[in-house]
């Protein structure tokens, strides 16, 4: 095992690094990793799962709100504010950036800008979700680091 496993771990480490390098995740994600311990060995994955499950409602509500005419910018802003807060919990950096952009458009009462940016938000949100799902799956397959490093 070892060799393969070590390779897997290296791969996982690279993928993880790319998340940061490419701006998908920020420091908050590291905080989550640091919280993971023997009493909560899958903490990070649990949190991410919880986030995606809970935040779906914001996207749904935002979608609905964006259908209304005229747009209620105040409500849109409020919803996005909450969504952004939630996204910050897992360190979803790109998502947050789009959220901020969206709120700027809200403040400027720019309907087109809002709608356009919302598409970006959803895109980043979904992209990150896929990446993280793949990442966690690999990590599970690779097994705990200790195993890989155990001397033969």
């Amino acid at each position, binding site marked *: 095992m070892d060799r393969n496993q070590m390779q897997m771990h290296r791969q996982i480490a690279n993928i993880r690094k790319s998340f940061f390098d490419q701006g998908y995740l920020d420091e908050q994600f590291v*905080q989550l990793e640091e919280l993971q311990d023997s009493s909560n060995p899958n903490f990070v994955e649990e949190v991410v799962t919880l986030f995606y499950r*809970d935040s779906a409602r914001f996207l749904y509500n935002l979608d609905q709100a964006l259908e209304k005419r005229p747009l209620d910018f*105040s409500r849109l802003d409020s919803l996005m504010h909450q969504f952004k807060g939630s996204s*910050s*919990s897992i360190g979803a950096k790109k998502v947050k950036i789009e959220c901020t952009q969206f709120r700027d458009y809200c403040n400027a009462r720019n309907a087109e800008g809002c709608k356009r940016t919302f598409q970006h938000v959803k895109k980043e949100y979904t992209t990150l979700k896929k990446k993280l799902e793949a990442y966690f799956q690999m990590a599970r397959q690779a097994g705990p680091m200790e195993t890989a490093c155990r001397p033969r």
Partner: protein
Amino acid sequence: MTEGGINGFSSPRADVFPAGLRVLVVDDDPTWLKILEKMLKKCSYEVTTCGLAIEALDLLRERKDGFDIVISDVNMPDMDGFKLLEHVGLEMDLPVIMMSVDGETSRVMRGVQHGACDYLLKPIRMKELRNIWQHVYRKKIHEVRDTESHDGLEEILMMRNVSEQSDDGYLLCGGDMTPGKKRKDAEHKYDDKDFADHSSIKKARVVWTVDLHQKFVKAVNHIGFEKVGPKKILDLMNVPWLTRENVASHLQKYRLYLTRLQKDDLKTSSSGLKHPDFSPRDAAGGDRTDHLKMQQNEAVNSYRPPSNLLLQNANSRIHEVDLKGTASLQKIEPKKVLTGFAAKSHKASCSNVGMSHSFGSTQYSTYNSVLPTQYSWNEGFTEIQFKQERNPQFQVENGFADLGLPPLQQHNQLNLQPLQPIANGLFGKERDKQAKSSSGTKSSFGSYSLPSQNLMPSFQPPDPSFQPPDPVTSSTWSLKDDQQTSTDNLELTAFLLQGQNCPSTNLDMQNKGMLEDNDPGFIAEVPPNLYDALRFDYEFPDSLEYPVIDQGLFIV
């Protein structure tokens, strides 16, 4: 001090402090709740989580002394975080830390104004949570000084021992020098006492009963707000067992409340959901009587059925402020105790309103209908314990420094009616409302420094033809015993009320019209908000408390 808690929840052990700190985390975002819980557990704290503000309050009320500190998000769906903040400060006197994604200065300022002992920005790092114990420690120190009791001291000494033993001694420098300094003070004070004799009983706080507070307010009024000082007040009050420190801390709270009330008034008086900064209408000056009328109108206005109300949004803030204004502004004869604002009479009706934490407009209607019947100031209410308000030092001096108190009087009469129901323990709600309503506001706080002056100008009675509500004689309010819950809330109200020195004309709270014959000066400025609050769905109990205390300042 390691006795078991009242409800069987263990008190934190001072010798391992800060480990075991009992933290209540309130956040509607389940992801954050999970993360914070884990972070706090890693700090060796004892964590309880809650997804709703109302739940949190219930928990806190059930387990009195079951928690050491509360951390709450600002944006909660069922209650504005600021309101929760105030409630907790008033009812439980626990340190509260606010959290938010939004780090805007105005928001942070609001947090501080509402009494937050810290404001954290999300995403929150674990190291920020590690040091939250300092707020608990600081509070204990304050309490010990206030009460001059040895019980709290014992606990603090134990904590100190821990710090002395620790290598980095971070207890001493956790963030600011105050704890260290206070420690020295406490040390100096108690050095020569025999600690070994301290029994581990609960520390005794000075209970600011209605009577006591009345004396306080009288003294303050007598001296003149501007010239007031703890020593002078103490001398005038002539209460042998009271210390200068007790008075000083009470005075600070009183001022704080007034300031806050004022601000709220200002804020709420500008109608609409998001209050733009509003500038005092008639800039300082103005004929007091006119203001008074305005206030009265406003007050009256607020009594009108909801349809008349300008602001239908839940402007809890307004409620609160209004209440505050009323309560505090009146001068009350010592004998006239505002007993729960006709608590008896409309206890029933108000109790629903007050007690339920719902924020619906129904409450308001109830309130309205109840109002007119109110007032009978019964005497003999139970003492209202003035709960120490946890407060940032921040506002205290601001507004008061240059305030001339007298203007406060203008509001006096207005409020009582609304207050009554509030007095019935509806407080909390009001405060909540206010918090809610003010959330969108970015009013500048700077202009609020002077309670009295600002209040008046900003007040804009929607309908000038109102008759002022019945004047409220607010001396001290004490809620009846059977209004226990409201008692909590009333505390503040009472406190506030006491502030008002009602001229002899007073205020009998019968449904008389405004006290025409009252000395105009007597009417404290009633924060316009107070009445506005009535208009909205307003949850009385909570907000009442708050405002009341604020306005507790005396009217000379």
